[in-house]
């Protein structure tokens, strides 16, 4: 095992229906004030007052996901009591996963479910989501036929949690992962959702206000499927969000605000990370296949050209300090990032699609066959091979993974750059908040960012030991909800500290003093192998040494490795 599991356990419960452990639908005991699924009119006066306070503070939403905003002291006390405080990974089991994987049931896929799951297991992933493209064939055939394959894989590869999901063609927008907790209705819920709300199935991909509304309605339907207990839980994340400029800022905010417990985030880094390997050794394309230009009909006109490219393998929305992601975090609302493989066809693999397949009629490609020649034109890696989304679960199991994702206990890395992270905000009073959390403390309380990084101890899957060279602390002011929903800048966010950690190994322990708490803010972190650095798009005063724009046709992904964490907020009472 190359990764740290916090409590030392790498054994999961693989019972899809884990009622007895109280996982239920993944809800934490939230105060109604912070649960945006409860309408104002349904709240007690006391709760309504509470909600208004939070809303005015610009913090409603963050609390809805984490609960920390309403009771950090309680949470912290519980953490102190129940979690081993000395633990390097914050008392959580950090489970690596991937929520974006295609199989032979996608019109551009190739592999069996079991091919992906066995590779994911070998590359030490703990959880994964099968997300074939929404399509007429998939809605009719694939969504059902893939299910027995998934159930069999759950049995055959006992170390990996396998969720069934869908790559949703979001009406009026890009693609997104939709997935549900396993259960007897997982197919029925996904199928109904696909038939009613998939942009390709319903011919609603084109950008229009009506189609934008349909996307929101689709998210409501997922919430309803959970509320009516058809499935225990459901989540949605936007995939490759800046690739074509289709996801406007107001659409992303619209999903988040409509169903904050369903629509929880986006890919911080897209898949297809091998696509930039130079010819003849690779596809010689753009990293992530980010080689598009604005579409005059469907793209959001306000995005700059740089938004269509990757930076250090990451999507512009995430890679830009003071950019779109920060503008959402500065609102005080949760929106998390992930990193996935988007595996379709694997770079240098020696197989090809089943010959003479008839996808149109059958809804799947026949099983792949061996070929002698390694397929260097393929642009993807196996799940777990390169991109990882680390989830801080409080226990093993499907529900806990989904709950941790909703809570934002997530960090991501490429090329297995680091082994484990433990990042907390700590008040001088002893209160703490983990990734995705909110530290509330009295105005004037001293706050520190406490950082423990366990460096890579074993070689990665390109057979070298990645070396972390620098670590950055990014801090942004919480300025409250934006009036212009298409805002994509956060002028009060910048890199406030960079640590040179070259040559350090084992555990890197750092404490960054954030001063006395006056105005609400958030911090997030990122780190790099230091190989490709450039001044950020908002200038050196904001980001003096951030990720460089990837070079088209010459982007060896193993020579440009980054990790990113999700944020932690600090709010004065």
């Amino acid at each position, binding site marked *: 095992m190359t990764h740290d599991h916090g409590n030392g356990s790498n054994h999961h419960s693989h019972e899809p229906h884990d009622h007895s452990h109280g996982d239920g639908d993944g809800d934490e005991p939230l105060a109604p004030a912070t649960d945006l699924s409860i309408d104002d009119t349904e709240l007690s006066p006391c709760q309504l007052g509470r909600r208004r306070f939070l809303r005015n503070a610009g913090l409603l939403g963050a609390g809805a996901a984490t609960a920390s905003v309403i009771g950090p002291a309680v949470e912290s006390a519980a953490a102190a009591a129940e979690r081993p405080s000395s633990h390097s990974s914050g008392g959580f089991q950090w489970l690596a996963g991937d929520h974006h994987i295609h199989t032979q049931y996608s019109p551009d896929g190739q592999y069996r479910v079991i091919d992906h799951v066995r590779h994911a297991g070998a590359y030490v992933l703990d959880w994964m989501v099968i997300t074939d493209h929404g399509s007429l064939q998939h809605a009719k055939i694939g969504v059902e036929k893939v299910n027995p394959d998934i159930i069999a894989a759950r049995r055959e590869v006992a170390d990996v949690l396998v969720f069934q999901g869908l790559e949703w063609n979001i009406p009026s927008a890009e693609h997104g992962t939709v997935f549900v907790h396993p259960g007897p209705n997982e197919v029925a819920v996904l199928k109904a959702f696909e038939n009613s709300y998939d942009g390709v199935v319903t011919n609603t*991909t084109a950008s229009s206000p009506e189609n934008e509304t349909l996307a929101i309605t689709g998210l409501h339907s997922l919430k309803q499927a959970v509320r009516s207990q058809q499935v225990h839980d459901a989540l949605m994340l936007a995939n490759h969000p800046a690739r*074509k400029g289709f996801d406007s800022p107001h659409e992303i905010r619209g999903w988040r605000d409509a169903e904050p417990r369903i629509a929880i985030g986006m890919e911080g880094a897209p898949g297809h990370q091998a696509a930039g390997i130079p010819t003849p050794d690779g596809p010689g394309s*753009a990293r992530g296949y980010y080689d598009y*230009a604005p579409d005059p009909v469907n793209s959001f006109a306000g995005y700059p*050209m740089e938004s269509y490219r990757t930076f250090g393998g990451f999507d512009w929305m995430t890679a830009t300090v003071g950019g779109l992601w920060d503008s959402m975090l500065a609102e005080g609302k949760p929106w998390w990032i992930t990193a996935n493989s988007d595996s379709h066809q694997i770079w240098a693999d020696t197989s090809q699609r089943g010959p003479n397949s008839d996808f149109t009629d059958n809804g799947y490609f026949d099983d792949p066959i061996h070929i002698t020649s390694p397929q260097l034109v393929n642009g993807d890696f196996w799940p777990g091979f390169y991109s990882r989304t680390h989830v801080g679960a409080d226990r093993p199991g499907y529900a806990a993974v989904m709950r941790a994702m909703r809570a934002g206990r997530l960090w991501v890395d490429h090329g297995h750059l680091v082994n484990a992270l433990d990042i907390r905000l700590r008040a001088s009073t002893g209160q703490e908040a983990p990734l995705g959390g909110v530290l509330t403390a009295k105005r004037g309380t001293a706050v520190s960012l406490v950082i423990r990084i366990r460096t890579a101890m074993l070689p990665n899957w390109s057979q070298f030991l990645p070396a972390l060279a620098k670590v950055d602390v990014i801090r942004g002011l919480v300025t409250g909800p934006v009036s212009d929903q298409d805002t994509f800048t956060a002028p009060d966010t910048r890199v406030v500290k960079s640590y040179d950690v070259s040559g350090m190994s084992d555990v890197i322990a750092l404490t960054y003093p954030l001063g006395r708490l006056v105005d609400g803010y958030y911090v997030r972190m990122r780190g790099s192998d230091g190989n490709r650095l450039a001044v950020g798009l908002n200038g050196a005063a904001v980001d003096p040494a951030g990720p460089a724009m990837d070079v088209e046709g010459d982007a060896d992904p193993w020579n440009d490795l980054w990790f990113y964490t999700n944020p932690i907020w600090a709010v004065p009472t």
Partner: protein
Amino acid sequence: MRNGSIVTTVSGTDVRASGCIPTPRRGRGSVAGFDVLTELQRDADVLAETIAAAITAEGGGDVFVASHPARSDGHRHIALSISASGVATPSSWWDVLSEAVDSNPGNGIGLALDDRYIGLPQLREPLADAVQAHRTRRSGRVIVFPGCTTNAGTVMVEELLATSAIDRVRVLAGGRADPGSLVRTRNFLRPRWDDGELVLDTQPAAGGALVPFETPFPTPCCQSQG
């Protein structure tokens, strides 16, 4: 004029041409607007090239055809704007464009030239915007321009500036273009007007060359919108 003396200057991170390539002069000459409710950029490109060929056959001189995002009744589509230095009279323009209209039967059309307009009433205003953007060189993705086809293969930045209507080569994300930098054109140049200049956006590519921001063959996406 094309081969007249060219001075390239480096300003910031961009390379500019101070040259003598004819460009549509602001506020003068006829600019036509043409709209067949095209939704796909590649269809707009084909249409632009067809129109340019017809106008060139009429002695069009320096022909510019640009595309513009347009909206009518909430419907987003692409409008074209056209100028040609060598077309003698507006009436011969009208004939050429009318023929192009006839060969593009579709959902509806709009054709504007000077004070004349035929077509759907709701296209009149977006076409007027497109024409104005072209006339002032304020905005527009330029498909046909002097030098657009002669700069094939790989060319130096200074050569590109000297032999085309492009005024400036910009590199994305604050990158730097030198006069001697190589641009691998992929035989596909789509500069844009920006505040009076014709700007070619480029990005770093394999082998140390630059490539235009827009590629002729973006990765096919199995479920794309367009």
